[in-house]
């Protein structure tokens, strides 16, 4: 895949997508919560900038709308909400101890390679641009997934989820010319409601386990060591 075969514009779009992927890596390895929230905001801004560029070049007016929506929702509102919640929960200086950060980053690299491997047969060889950008957006989705698996702090898990959404959005904008308007509004509404509900849950979780480390939520695991009751108690 030679990138210089692409037009300058496509190279610019790929640069923006690549930067979003880079932010995903930052999110995985950033132990300080507030800094991670800020990085997430930058990812939102990057995705929005990419959408705006695509809107201008494709002459697709609905994309202007989605660019604005992404900027407001992912770049401003959700980071602001999470930041405020972090302050109210007294987490501004919070720094999470990451488990095996190097290994997780390495796993992230493998996920990027995996995305390219998965996407390769899907798109014809000529469409280098589409192929790159779908692979990158899938990588952003999978890295968000990885983050949700390896971070045990509730707010960090939410960041992982939201960056997954960013990756999905990236895929929708770049592989196609954006989803139909009703769908986009519906997805945005769901994300918004999810963000608010996550906020509610931070307080519920802290109330119940006095911490936001979701590793301590372990009351409901299957308990194999207890012998289940047998039917000795039946009368007669």
């Amino acid at each position: 895949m030679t990138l210089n075969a692409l037009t300058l514009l496509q190279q610019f779009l790929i640069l923006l997508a690549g930067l979003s992927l880079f932010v995903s890596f930052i999110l995985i390895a950033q132990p300080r919560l507030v800094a991670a929230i800020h990085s997430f905001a930058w990812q939102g801004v990057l995705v929005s900038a990419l959408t705006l560029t695509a809107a201008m070049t494709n002459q697709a007016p609905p994309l202007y709308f989605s660019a604005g929506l992404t900027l407001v929702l992912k770049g401003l509102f959700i980071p602001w909400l999470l930041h405020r919640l972090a302050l109210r929960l007294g987490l501004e200086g919070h720094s999470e101890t990451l488990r095996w950060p190097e290994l997780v980053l390495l796993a992230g690299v493998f996920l990027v390679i995996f995305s390219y491997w998965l996407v390769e047969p899907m798109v014809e060889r000529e469409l280098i641009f589409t192929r790159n950008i779908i692979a990158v957006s899938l990588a952003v989705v999978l890295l968000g997934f990885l983050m949700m698996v390896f971070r045990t702090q509730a707010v960090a898990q939410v960041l992982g989820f939201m960056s997954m959404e960013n990756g999905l959005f990236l895929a929708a904008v770049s592989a196609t010319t954006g989803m139909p308007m009703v769908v986009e509004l519906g997805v945005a509404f769901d994300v918004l409601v999810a963000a608010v509900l996550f906020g509610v849950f931070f307080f519920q979780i802290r109330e119940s386990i006095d911490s936001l480390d979701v590793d301590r939520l372990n009351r409901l695991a299957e308990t194999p060591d207890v012998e289940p009751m047998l039917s000795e108690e039946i009368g007669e």
Partner: protein
Amino acid sequence: MSGLTLTLFAPLLGGLTLVWLRPLGLAGWFNLGVSGLTLVGSLWLAKTVAQKGILVESIAGMGFRIDAFNVYLVVLTAFVGFTTAIFSRPYMRHVCASGKISPASLRLYHSLYQAFMLTMLLALTTDNLGILWVAIEGATLATVLLVSLYRTPEAVEAAWKYFILCSVGIALALFGTVLTYFAAQHVLADPAAGLSWSALYSQAQMLNPTVMRIAFVFLLVGYGTKVGLVPMHQWLPDAHSEGPTPMSAVLSGLLLNVALYAVVRLKMLVDGSLAQTQTPQLAGILLMGFGMVSFLVAGLFLHRQRDIKRMFSYSSIEHMGLMTFAFGLGGSLATFGALLHMLVHSLTKSAIFVTVGHATHIAGTQAIDRIRGLIRTQPAVGWSLLIAVAAIAGFPPFGIFASEFLLLTATMQSQPWLTLALLSGLGIAFAGLFRYLHPMVYGQPPEGQQAVPANMIPVLIHLGLVLWLGLAIPEFLAQWLDRATQLITGTHLL
């Protein structure tokens, strides 16, 4: 005004009104009334579809497509929603009166109940794969606060797990949806219609098979999380056991069905796309694999449960696995059996959860080893539980026996060696259920255990219907399911 608008707008407006409705006694009745109205709307819709065949409608720029397959699920959803509302009215009043939840939480409960019904009905009726995704994610959002309604540490944990797992799963499904849309871009004349299921279905053989194959894996994992397929099932027992009982009834009876409906619709697209390739059965094989694993694993897990609601949620996973397997098997007999099984399982399982709600109320606990002597304390609850469990375990003359028999016959025809696995799975699940059921219904009740005011009407209606379906499937219903079978597989059974 049509059946469809009534079906969708009743829960929408009802949900919005219930947020503000302060008199608690009235709210329960209002919830019931709205559910009744939805049921009327769905029956009206069914009548229209029966006359016209396929109904295509557009409301507020959203396309709807209702055919024999989804209209039967719409009626089922509205019906179970209605009977559960009958049960939930006094039950939740009692929960509220006992101080477990505040009046504000009860208001939230009623409003979200309708919101959940709305998302289910929207997911079933829409023609747009994007809206389908939005509605199924909306169902998670509507129910997640209900799971944590009691605010115990366990409930909050269950809700968090539910929220995170289902959101992640459903995010993967959205990626699959985007890929489907991508495949449609080069095929459809109007790319903007690329998420319309009917447009995609008519051109399915043109969709790029490589893209569709990968898209289906994402879609199956995503929606499969909501179906409760192993290994993505972790949220299901927790959410069912910690949420309020009416919620467990509708989650098990409806949400799982709707998610499976989404999987089947998408399988139809992928089958069309892969028909000319070397692996035309790929989607079916994946469904069979996931279904069989879920069926067997859940059956084994039934044996080590100590919480009665957890036990029955594993039974739901087991049955969803069986249906997924049957849809994967394909062919008209298996599909007919799976459709029938969806119907009878929903009816039976919601009846079980309603009965379990009363049983836990009598015993004051959900722990299996502390629920004893139900028949002596309150025969209506004890016998209902016994009969309902006999029905869910597949005893004749109940409907589940009929559908499981059809499924076994179909398996015997096309994959004979898998019949053995199915039979042993059914046996394991049967043993698991009855092992705990026996001491719960018979046995000596603890000192001072008293009967509670119970509303057994929904249970009686459901079990009566399941019995009827087991003895003789009415002609119109058989025709109806046959038409749905024809839509899915292309061939008639009857």
